[in-house]
């Protein structure tokens, strides 16, 4: 049984089809990469799965249970945590307090939440920054904190929306390591990413969206050579010249 199963998910904003009958399966223990050019509907799909947008059609199943249309806080309680592309940290709160807010998802006790948050901070390499105001962190650490907060809610599925966009090479490498560590700790990861170099080496499978439709789903190696994917990313011209060779 798939951990997450999306069936025929459709989302339209007026006349714009942001997601057009998308099917998606994420199995337990996988890292699945969700890629596609700008405006392909990746974030919209995220928002529909995590309950931020009501979907226009289709269903979402998590652990076999229909979670379509549940509010986002309940979905988080079920075990799906997400991050935001533009970080949504609580900038006037300390780093530790940010993560504690996440940890309270599974406990009512402040001391238990604090202990859990410290573990998560340690795991994410943010422990030295725990007393700082979140607003004062560097971009890389803000992105890390965004992951830490979601991780602290105790999810079985973590959905990362461009957790590495805007980072330099070293920072990106560190972030990739973190994602691997999270997967190795037993949490399934669904990853939206723009940067191909990031997605390809760590994903078990890659799903490609274009104009709201799923155009490919395969192992990274096969997706790279998929004609339709190349067309979506580089356009018809490149596609044609390749053929001419």
């Amino acid at each position, binding site marked *: 049984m798939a951990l997450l199963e999306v069936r025929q998910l459709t989302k339209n904003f007026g006349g714009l089809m942001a997601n057009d009958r998308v099917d998606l399966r994420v199995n337990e223990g996988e890292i699945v990469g969700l890629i596609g050019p700008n405006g392909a509907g990746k974030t919209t799909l995220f928002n529909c799965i*995590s309950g*931020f947008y009501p979907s226009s059609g289709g269903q979402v199943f998590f652990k076999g249970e229909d979670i379509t249309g549940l*509010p*986002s*806080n*309940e979905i*988080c*309680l079920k075990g799906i*945590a*997400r991050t*935001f592309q533009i970080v*949504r*940290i*609580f*900038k*006037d*709160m300390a780093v530790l*307090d940010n993560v*504690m*807010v*996440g940890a*309270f*998802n599974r*406990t*009512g*006790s*402040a001391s238990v*939440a604090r202990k859990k948050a410290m573990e998560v901070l340690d795991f994410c390499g943010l422990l030295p920054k725990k007393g700082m105001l979140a607003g004062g962190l560097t971009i890389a650490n803000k992105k890390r904190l965004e992951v830490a*907060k*979601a991780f602290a*809610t105790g999810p079985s599925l973590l959905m990362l929306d461009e957790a590495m966009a805007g980072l330099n090479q070293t920072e990106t490498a560190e972030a990739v390591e973190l994602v691997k560590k999270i997967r190795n700790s037993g949490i399934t990861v669904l990853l939206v990413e723009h940067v191909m170099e990031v997605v390809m080496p760590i994903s078990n499978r890659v799903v490609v969206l274009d104009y709201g439709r799923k155009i490919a789903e395969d192992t990274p190696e096969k997706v790279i050579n998929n004609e339709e994917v190349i067309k979506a990313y580089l356009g018809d011209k490149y596609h044609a010249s390749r053929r001419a060779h």
Partner: protein
Amino acid sequence: MGFHNKYIWLGLGAAIFLIYPLIFTLPFPRHLMIMIFLYATLGLGWNMIGGYAGQISLGHAVFFGVGAYTSTLMLMKLGVSPWAGMLVGGLLSAGISFIIGYPCFKLAGHYFAIATIAIGEIAQVWMLNWDWAGAAVGLTLPILPESLINLEFHSTKAPYYYIAFGLLILGLLATYGIDRSKLGYYFRAIKGDLEAARSLGIHVTKYKFYALALSAFFTSICGSFYAQYILFIDPDSVFPLMLSIVVCLVATLGGVGTVWGPVIGAFILIPISEFTRIYLGGGGKGTDLIIYGLLIIVISVYQPFGVIGLAKRFRKKESG
């Protein structure tokens, strides 16, 4: 500040306020402190929804008025002790807060504040026309023998002083409890970023209701105390918009979303209002409001985190 150091300061502060009425035996210094304690507690109450959860209410006079009227009406019509009336009023206010919150929490930011102003005005007009509850004439409380159970003291203000101090301690303990618990973290998260709070599993509306109900309860208790202290209430004295604004200002000036902010705010604002009343009398009516207005401008422009924020900034500069 060290752990032990903090407790020494707290103990010292408490001791000073406990012996204060023994040193200052005249009515005015005692009255001044009673008003400071009362507004500090009101500020602490407002701080729960306005400071921690970030939902700016300008209609808190409703809860104050409900507290004042509930205990007074229960005393006059049923002969029930004001203490029981205080508790019933607090619970009634918490109940009313759900009715207010239901439509108002659908609004965000300034619109929420505007809606609460409207509700405050509706309540005041309602009370002005409700004959059974004294309407515009108000209610004069029956003069009963002095006793704690009657919550009336005529020969000295000292018992009122200690009761007001007790209310303040209660408010501080509750705030401290909120500050350190799941509630406080969730309130701050809601204030910081609604969507992020939702994504971390917080039922945002539910926690807003909690914050408002707690806030209403404390505000209402203060209203009952006020009625027993002044022994006369009317819609203009316990339901005015100005009261809602001053309560908000007390917390904002001191530092929103902090345990001590409202206390500091009350110690700054209430003397201004009491002293201008004394020295300028009727001719200077409104002078305190002018000063309040200036303070609002200064706070919002220079130090949105209030006096506490200023102190923190100073300390940071010192250490760094």
